[in-house]
């Protein structure tokens, strides 16, 4: 299968990635799905997890990106991923991440209001998820 999709990953701050790829594995809230050329037009929300981008289908993913909060828009030969936060796994420092997880856990225990605690907890959980994705 040689048909390609134009894949774009956009965060509020900038356009993170724009490339022609053969397939993208998207972690939707209702389940993971692999999008290839000719996929049905679709809009789905995302759960915090890793997006696998396959420049050529088969074998290992060419790029793995952790995204948090966002949605994906698929139209025919175009995939647009809007993420509130996105981190390329290749650029990720494991030690720094582990430290972030610890900081987040500390924030949870230090939070004064319920709202603060809920937010810190959400951050902690998603960081944990990210950490387990790296390992």
């Amino acid at each position, binding site marked *: 299968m040689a048909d390609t999709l134009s894949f774009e990953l956009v965060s*509020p*701050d900038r*356009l993170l990635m724009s490339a022609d790829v053969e397939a993208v594995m998207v972690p939707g809230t209702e389940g993971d799905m692999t999008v290839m050329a000719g996929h*049905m*037009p679709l809009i789905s*929300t995302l759960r915090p997890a890793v997006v696998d981008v396959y420049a050529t289908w088969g074998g290992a993913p060419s790029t793995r990106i952790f995204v948090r909060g966002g949605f994906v828009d698929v*139209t025919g030969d*175009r995939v647009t991923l*809007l993420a509130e936060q996105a981190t390329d796994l290749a650029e990720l420092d494991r030690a720094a991440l582990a430290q972030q997880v610890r900081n987040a856990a500390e924030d949870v225990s230090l939070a004064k209001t319920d709202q603060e605690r809920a937010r810190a907890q959400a951050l902690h959980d998603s960081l944990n998820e990210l950490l387990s994705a790296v390992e």
Partner: protein
Amino acid sequence: MASLKDLRNRINSVKSTQKITRAMQMVAASKLRRAQEAVEAGRPYAQRMETVLASLAGSLLDQPGAPGLLVGNGKDDVHLIVVATAERGLCGAFNSSIVRAAIQKIELLKRQGKTVKILTVGRKGAIQLRRNYGNLIVDSFEFPGLRQVGFAQALPVAERILAMFEAGEFDVCSLFYNRFQSVISQIVTEIQLIPAQIPELPAGSLNEGLGLAVYEFEPDEETILRELLPRNLTVQVLRALLENAASEQGARMSAMDNATRNAGDLINGLTLTYNRTRQAVITTELIEIISGAEAL
């Protein structure tokens, strides 16, 4: 008549002021470039968001259970005015023009018998509004010492607006900021955040021809829209903050350019007076010497 020494001091002090304004102008110029890049970088996300939202909202707008963020809560009594200004001054009329536009709106709403609440973002606006409308300000956001405004700043502002809306503290929310037109022109802009203003689908967009019916939604449309609208609000706030940052630097740049030029004019005038006075002093001295010699 000022003495020579006074004039000399005056010239020196204006010169050092000119140095400062010139430095500020150059700093603003380099910051402006970065701010402009940030605005550019934020555009793709906002555009995509708009496209998706436009295609989604069209189908849900007339339905009874449509989300409040989209259609409002049916009332128009309490208005929340969000005033986004800069942290610092010395940027010409940048801050006061935003505040003036906001005040006009506030007065208009008051005349119509509406209740007005104010939320300020940025120190300067808070200071200017506190004088006359201190009792209306419900909250203020300040980001002192911030180098580059970003998503992290827009999020708490948007969350606060959302929390207030959900608590029923206001019905309509609009935001004031300066849209960046060019270095010398920034336009005070008002956008309505709640109920959301859904842009028309641009002609020739990707979704055209596809229609909405063929779209598959996961989960269903309404859930997605509920998820999307708060996010759209954050993006709108972020865009306003970014535009504001670029406008601020542009305004500061032209203000400081003017100040540098004025200082130059002042120095020229003072130098002329200084030289005239100096020559007058010399002439007087010569006349004294000559008349002294003649008297002998």
